[in-house]
């Protein structure tokens, strides 16, 4: 199996609070890995370690060996800006920039120095098509991104995340603010995205994890309890705590 991100002994502290305890597992390339667990289990914190988002948090300390395509992302010489080009992220609430649809998607590539109009046009079109939004917005690319519906905004954010052609797309509960139909569209889109990208998704919806992911990691109180093939995990988990969680005994 081709490993995209390898996480070894990930420890995260917020001040004195030990949030992630020696978490180790590999995320496979062009697969969807779901992170599940009750609130406060560390799954979102883990996701944020993968593109060094925890760097922003005062008092946060990461001790980890996380390698993306073999390269240590916490190494001294790692350029965090280019790391975030390789690792796109989509958040819980759709958060388009207050600018046009076109500029939202072109924002990343421009930041990384692409100025050529034709090149930008091509990137914008490919990315919006990749986010399955093209038919709905192709005639109004100059309209504000904020004028779109919630589901469309989220797909715009996905288009923005893939515009820099990242290796990995991180998603932190990307459908929790969306209605069922918009959710179904994002889920189908994730299935298509994995043909080109590695997807790591945090979700509170276990049915969603079961539907869309290839691998699932179950976190509890900062520990990685179980990691495995999704189909196996939801029918016959190996750890009693996983069984208790997925059958609703706690969490």
């Amino acid at each position, binding site marked *: 199996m081709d490993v995209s991100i390898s996480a070894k002994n990930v420890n995260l502290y917020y001040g004195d609070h030990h949030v992630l305890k020696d978490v180790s597992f590999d995320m496979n390339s062009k697969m969807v890995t779901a992170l599940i667990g009750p609130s406060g289990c560390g799954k979102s914190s883990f996701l944020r370690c993968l593109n060094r988002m925890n760097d922003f948090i005062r008092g946060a300390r990461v001790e980890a060996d996380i390698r993306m395509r073999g390269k240590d992302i916490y190494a001294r010489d790692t350029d965090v800006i280019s790391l975030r080009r390789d690792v796109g992220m989509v958040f819980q609430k759709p958060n388009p920039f207050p600018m046009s649809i076109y500029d939202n998607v072109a924002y990343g590539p421009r930041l990384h120095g692409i100025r050529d109009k034709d090149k930008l046009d091509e990137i914008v079109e490919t990315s919006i098509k990749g986010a399955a939004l093209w038919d709905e917005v192709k005639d109004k690319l100059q309209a504000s991104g904020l004028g779109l519906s919630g589901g469309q905004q989220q797909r715009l954010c996905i288009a923005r995340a893939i515009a820099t052609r990242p290796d990995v797309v991180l998603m932190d509960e990307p459908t929790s603010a969306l209605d069922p139909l918009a959710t179904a569209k994002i889920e189908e889109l994730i299935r298509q995205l994995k043909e080109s990208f590695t997807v790591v998704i945090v979700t509170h919806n*276990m*049915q969603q994890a*079961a539907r869309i992911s290839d691998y699932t990691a179950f976190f509890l109180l900062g520990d990685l309890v179980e990691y495995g093939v999704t189909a196996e995990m*939801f*029918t*016959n*988990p190996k750890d009693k705590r*996983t*069984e208790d969680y*997925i*059958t*609703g*005994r*706690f969490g």
Partner: protein
Amino acid sequence: MYQINTRAHLEEKLNDLKRKLIKLGKMSKEALNKAVWALKNQDPKLARTVIDNDDNIDALRYEIENDCLTFIARFQPFGEDLRAISSIMYMASDIERLGDYGSRISRIAIELAEEEFIKPLIDIPRMQVLLDEMLEDTLSAFDNKDMSLAKTVFSKDDEVDDLEEQILRELVLMMMEKPSRIAQASKLFFVARSLERAGDHITNLAERIFYITTGEITPASRFRRPLPPEKE
């Protein structure tokens, strides 16, 4: 302090389903017992009640199947709940087959009600007694998640198979001696074969009980007596 049991609704429905499956088991058990009794005691009236009741067994089986689908749609179960629900669907179908065997044997009981038996019926009722124990133990093992009780079913099924073979041998001999016995002997053979098949369905139930609890498919052969060595 008040605690919310998040599984209360799900467990209520799952328990309802388990109760229905056990009821179905009891109905099929009764069908087999009455059918063999009616055959042995040449009681066509009793045999008819078994045949009449088969529609009720079928109806309960479909009710269980429908309840399982509703359960899946409403609760979208995972883990042991999912294994239990899928297994209950298969188990209902296995149990319903037991009822069918009861009906088939009852039909033969009606056909043979006026005939003199070519031999006293001893081994067929013995098969039925074994099956009755097996089914009772299986239903109890299912109810109490009792793996060691479920295991006992497999060796008893070996005994059922032995009895069937013995009956077959005897009947073949009797048919060879006197071809006029063929009509009745083949009917009795059909009864023995039905009971042997019933035993296999009961071992299927036991396998499912293992699966629900352990998540492993346990082949019955693990608990059966080993096959005799091949002859040189």
